[in-house]
């Protein structure tokens, strides 16, 4: 099965996610989110990083163009931020031009979902290993 296209209204769920992605960039770039002193409850309780530890740092570093620091904070966080921002821009441009939404075949969606679960596990293993090393 190949990629198909679906006509949709100008503002839908995809655009809502795109706006959230854009808001995350603006927050990471312009708000002092690292100075808020937020503590991961999992790390506070166990002394070990959780699966999403370092993602705020990754988003902030990447928004400031510090790619290496972003990858060091959380590889998955850096990839997630880059992907989310790229998709946000692409979707907002698509909506502005009134183009249809690309719909991936189900097999590709399933493969992508399994890859995402695997990526979370690998990223967490790396964070734990780095914490132990």
């Amino acid at each position, binding site marked *: *099965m190949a990629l198909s296209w679906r006509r949709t209204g100008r503002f*839908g*769920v995809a655009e*809502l*996610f795109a706006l*959230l992605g854009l808001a995350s960039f603006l927050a990471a770039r312009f708000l002092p989110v690292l100075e808020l002193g937020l503590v991961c409850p*999992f790390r506070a309780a*166990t002394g*070990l990083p*959780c*699966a999403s530890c370092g993602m705020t740092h990754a988003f902030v570093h990447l928004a400031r163009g510090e790619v290496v620091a972003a990858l060091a904070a959380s590889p998955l966080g850096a990839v997630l931020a880059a992907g989310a921002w790229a998709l946000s821009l692409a979707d907002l441009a698509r909506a502005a031009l009134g183009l249809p939404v690309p719909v991936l075949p*189900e097999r590709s*969606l*399933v493969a*992508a*979902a*399994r890859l*995402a*679960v695997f990526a*979370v*596990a690998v990223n*967490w293993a790396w964070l*734990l290993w780095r914490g132990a090393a």
Partner: protein
Amino acid sequence: MLARCAHCQNTFETDRFGVQACPHCGQQVHLADPSAPPPPAAPPVPPAASPASPPADGVPAPFVRRSELGFFHAYVETWKLAALRPAEFFRPLRISDTGSTLLFGVATMTVASWFQTLYGALMGAAARNVLEQMLRQMPRGAEFGNAWILKWTSTGTAFGVVAQLVAAPFLALLGILVFAGIFHVALLALRGAPRGFDATLTVVGYAAAGHLIGAAPVPGLASLVGSVWWLALVAVGLAETQRVPQGKAWTATLLPFALICLCCCGAIAIPILAALGRH
């Protein structure tokens, strides 16, 4: 030509009419040939005797008809159905009304959050009073009556309350979208999302009905019960809306939490086992 399955609502390409299996959900679909002669006209059936069959694209929730029913009445009817009769509610539900779904979920979670903020502020004020009384009973404690710590707690609490009240609807929207995304990834990984993301989002939005119990004046416990109720509604709703077995829906709902628990246990057990191995 493009055909739409009446069961899962997904579209697929086909080159023939007649009965065939939907490639998405496997159900039998009958595509009527428009060039075929029309069937003989059936005798008219009185409207009272005709069975009430749901529309092909599903039944809208009462909240979707809020302009017709009134906002409060439509909200209460939807809440009762979603929270108390979830299987009956979610099974025939139309999944294309994502705007109403999000509005219902955001409204419910915001109200629950506002009540929790209020209880938190009241408990904070009570704690401040206790602190002030303790200071008065201490030798030279009255000198601290205007101390920075009391000013800081009062200002901090007031600022925190306002910030929480303002942020509540935005955090509710964010929570619904993020959790819908997480549950959908889990469903996809288990091959349990034949009706797409709109169905998952519809369930997560209306399942927020469970969170309203968090508005009960039992701080902590009420929000815990509300969260458990919400999870149960999500699992039941996903099974009915995505047309997947209950086991698969419960697995997808609990998978993210189970992974966290497993990793917690593993992360705690590894150092303990390593320490035991040294002795």
